[in-house]
């Protein structure tokens, strides 16, 4: 009896995250995600892409569907600047919350083109894909709200309880991205990913390459046996957390272990591999059930 009680206490409450979220939390989420993108774009001198030799471009996603001449025209300093300004303008319109279904849809399309563009000169890395999908989620559910109120017989007052739908979907996408990464590593990479020199090779390789954040530390990893041991032991541990990330949707106790563990992993990736998943870390704010803590953010 005591064991089961202790176990129950350890597992904690099993409740769906954001189930009680209200419009206040949804508005804050919209504001946060749109502001994140505005901040990213303001820091990006996109027009410099025009300088890169054309033979180095390998269009990604939507860009691959465009004719080569259209891509060439887009890759001029004036066009890139105009594109950046237009995207910023649409994102600022999103902040006004007027006709959000329209503005967010245009923003999602422009940001998808932007993200395809910056990946067309190198590997299609995974940074900022989840925030990009989050904008699509906000746009998609804004359309669903619009149709439901207009044609589906739903009343605007009901839409209060609909605020949890986009929030749960964004958290599901965030967690699912981790789950898919973990499953892929476990089953495609096999046991050798965890037993050999894999982590040292990734750390040294990423450190030598540089990237935007260049700590210049990772290539020393083979000299430090304790760090090597930490990386080797850490990978299976992190993979386990990645594979089970969907539990964040249901368990608050799991979330309080997941958040510090994965934040440490992302910070260590920055130190040893120069890779910084700032955007995903920003979305961790959605792993906190704000509406249960602050009734003002709840639908009830």
């Amino acid at each position, binding site marked *: 009896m005591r064991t089961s009680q202790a176990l129950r206490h350890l597992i904690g409450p099993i409740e769906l995250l954001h189930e009680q979220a209200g419009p206040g939390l949804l508005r804050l989420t919209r504001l946060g995600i749109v502001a994140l993108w505005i901040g990213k774009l303001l820091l990006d001198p996109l027009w410099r892409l025009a300088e890169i*030799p054309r033979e180095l471009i390998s269009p990604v996603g939507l860009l691959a569907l465009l004719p080569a001449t259209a891509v060439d025209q887009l890759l001029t300093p004036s066009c890139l600047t105009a594109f950046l300004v237009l995207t910023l303008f649409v994102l600022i319109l999103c902040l006004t919350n007027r006709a959000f279904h329209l503005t967010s849809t245009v923003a999602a399309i422009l940001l998808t083109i932007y993200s395809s563009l910056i990946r067309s000169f*190198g590997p299609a890395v995974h940074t900022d894909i989840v925030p990009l999908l989050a904008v699509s989620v906000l746009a998609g559910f804004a359309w669903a709200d619009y149709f439901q109120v207009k044609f589906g017989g739903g009343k605007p007052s009901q839409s209060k309880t609909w605020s949890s739908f986009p929030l749960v979907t964004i958290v599901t996408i965030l967690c699912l991205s981790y789950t898919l990464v973990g499953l892929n590593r476990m089953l495609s990479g096999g046991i050798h990913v965890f037993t050999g020199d894999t982590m040292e090779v*990734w750390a040294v390789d990423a450190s030598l390459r540089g990237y935007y954040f260049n700590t210049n530390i990772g290539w020393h990893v083979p000299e430090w046996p304790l760090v090597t041991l930490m990386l080797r032991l850490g990978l299976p541990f992190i993979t386990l957390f990645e594979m089970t990330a969907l539990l964040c949707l249901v368990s608050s106790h799991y979330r309080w272990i997941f958040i510090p563990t994965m934040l440490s992993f992302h910070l260590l990736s920055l130190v040893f591999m120069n890779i910084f998943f700032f955007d995903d870390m920003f979305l961790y704010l959605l792993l906190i059930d704000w509406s249960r803590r602050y009734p003002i953010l709840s639908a009830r």
Partner: protein
Amino acid sequence: MSKAARTPLRLHPAIAVTAICFCIALLIWKLSFADPHPIPFSITGQACLLIALLLAFRYWPPMIRWVTRMPIAHRVIFALLIGGMIAGHFTLNTRKYFPLVAWEIFPVAREEDPVLCREMIATTASGKNVRLLVEQLIPSIVQFDLPANPDATERLIRVLAKIYNQKHADDPVQQVDLMVMAVKLHPSTNESRTQPSCELLKHYDISSAR
């Protein structure tokens, strides 16, 4: 003879799982002919684990409550987004269907020793050595692989030197050395580890090309 009471037609979960597995098997079969072909086992394994996870959520009462509360339009959007993300992962492609991509981070074992990397080391007018990094000079690009083609590499180096010089007009880059850096994971005991070993691949004179 009385007519048997009709029960509503319901799709048994096991049938749904079988149908999904069958579709996945078809996909694996098709992909197995692609070049380079994926290992069917790894895909099947991922699919099965994912199905198990999703089924657990499918029958979890709070999730049922949440989904049944959703109007139809919202359900469609939810299914499209989550379904698209999963389908994107199983295309095994990170570029073509962006942002519905295959999620792979450290997906394979790497055993190379030494680890090699090409770097562009510039020398400025004052004799200072600086590293030209595409990701720092053109920060839109998150990650960049140096091209294998020597002509493209030369054009890129000149572009990077130009961007650097725009920011540092008082101490411009005059020459760039393309080097290959090597770090041994298991060096012999008498080998120095203070710096990666490097070898000059090509020297580019930037000042003469103006």
